[in-house]
């Protein structure tokens, strides 16, 4: 695990403990994906509304805490601000609000929405004739929503080669509507599919770079809770839990011991 990824996960645990909120396992599964996004896309933390920026939409909005921590560590705002996560008067809700948090392009939370917005943003960039790229991160559970596949069909039909969809394949749906072989499905829809280790930041960045040719889907093969053994082994119980004072040091110790 790269040092920044470990720091991000420590921040997620800390804030989840202090606030009593957090979707920790899902945040943990997307840490490296979020790093790769901000490694790759053009953006300026000092000027979040910079006209020349690329656009990122966190479609699986319940991973907002992970996004906040990445944005904070990349300089958008102090990480201390995020400790008010979920509290009355805080800018940092359990699902992000674009009017409150610099760097957040769209307010998401209800699943299956961000990807449609991202398709519209990519279409806008295409009509404008610029080279703006749009990346959206969706979850495998989110892909139960029909609008995900509608949006993919539209993106393919419109040949939006400036759009990249990161599919967080963290196997969250093994107890209900699982989607086996998602890469084959997206390929069948006409996407250019790349399958990578979703906890390999460099592999993700490489998959996000270069030309796509068609709407690109990066299947990020991840584990929900990756970084703490307890979270991986019991991901459903921990889906919305936050650690108490007894559990926090245990999770921190597990995180420090994670050697993959």
């Amino acid at each position, binding site marked *: 695990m790269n040092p920044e990824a470990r720091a991000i996960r420590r921040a997620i645990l800390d804030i989840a403990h202090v606030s009593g909120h957090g979707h920790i396992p899902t945040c943990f599964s997307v840490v490296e994906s979020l790093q790769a996004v901000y490694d790759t896309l053009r953006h300026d933390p000092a000027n979040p509304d910079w006209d020349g920026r690329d656009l990122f939409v966190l479609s699986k909005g319940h991973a907002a805490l992970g996004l906040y921590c990445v944005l904070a560590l990349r300089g958008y705002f102090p990480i201390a601000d995020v400790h008010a996560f979920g509290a009355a008067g805080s800018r940092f809700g359990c699902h992000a609000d674009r*009017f409150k948090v610099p760097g957040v392009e769209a307010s998401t939370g209800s699943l299956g929405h961000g990807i*449609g917005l991202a398709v519209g943003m*990519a279409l806008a960039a295409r009509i404008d004739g610029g080279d703006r790229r749009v990346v959206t991160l969706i979850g495998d559970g989110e892909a139960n929503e029909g609008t995900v596949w*509608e949006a993919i069909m539209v993106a393919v039909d419109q040949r939006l080669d400036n759009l990249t969809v990161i599919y967080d394949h963290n196997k969250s749906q093994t107890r209900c509507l699982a989607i086996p072989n998602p890469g084959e499905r997206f390929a069948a829809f006409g996407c250019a599919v790349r399958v990578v280790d979703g906890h390999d930041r460099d592999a993700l960045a490489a998959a996000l770079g270069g030309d796509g040719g068609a709407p690109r889907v990066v299947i990020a093969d991840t584990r929900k809770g990756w970084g703490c053994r307890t979270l991986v082994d019991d991901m459903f119980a921990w889906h919305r839990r936050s650690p108490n004072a007894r559990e926090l040091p245990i999770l921190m110790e597990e995180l420090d011991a994670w050697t993959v």
Partner: protein
Amino acid sequence: MRGQFRETATALAETDPRVVVILGDISVYQFRDFQARFPKRFYNMGICEATLIGVAAGLASQGWFPFVHSIAPFVTERGLEQIKLDMAYNGFGGNVVSCGATFDYAWDGATHHAYGELEALRLVPGMEVLQPGSRREVDALIRQCYGNGRPTYVRLSDYPHDEDLGEIVAGRGRVVIDKSARLTVMTAGPILGNVRRAVADLPVNLVYFHTLKPLDRDLVERFRDTDILVVHDARGLREAIGEVPNLRVDFHGLGDRFYSGYGTVDDLRRECGLDPAGIREAVARRLKGS
């Protein structure tokens, strides 16, 4: 009204390079000229109404003024969460323009009828809800609202009224008849034609709205000392007027049921008492009781 929508959208596109049209495979022939003239700003995107709204919101986020057009129940009721969240909550305003108002597709049955969407959209914070009743109203209201950044619903009908109501201003209603009567009939949209025929020689006032949200509350206030009878072929107007406190309001229109019959618009209007005779009877009943 669809023809007017096409003409107005085309005229706007000529002068405003940020206008874009997205169709849900509806009215495609109507927009052939638009497509030929503005190929980069025309998309017959598919029968996926929720996603059409999401895509339109994404376009709006980048400074475009999208018109999304499809059949009323599908583009509004199926796409309601996208209108609420992608457009309204995100502040990515766009224009949702429907056809197939109320019983316009009478013969297609209840799946193709729309009489709840005006009220559903009225409940979306920040939403503008327009029910033009004539071509002139379509043109004026779209021109006034299309680029204001707010999510806007424009409900078209193939059965417009033929009343000339003078100046048309979004958010302002009109007094059609003022007899200083004790009973005021309030209505909206195309059904105005039937309503006026029904009450022309009765001792009532007649007030008309083409904008359900924001409602012209000042106009409602002018008639607060009268009994008010809302006559409408949809949900939404009665509820909007009911938000003005301490009025005496009654409603004549649709009940809590599906209207599953077929036939023509007039057949279904007659079934629910919204033909001129049915409206006249309802008004006369209130006059006797007031």
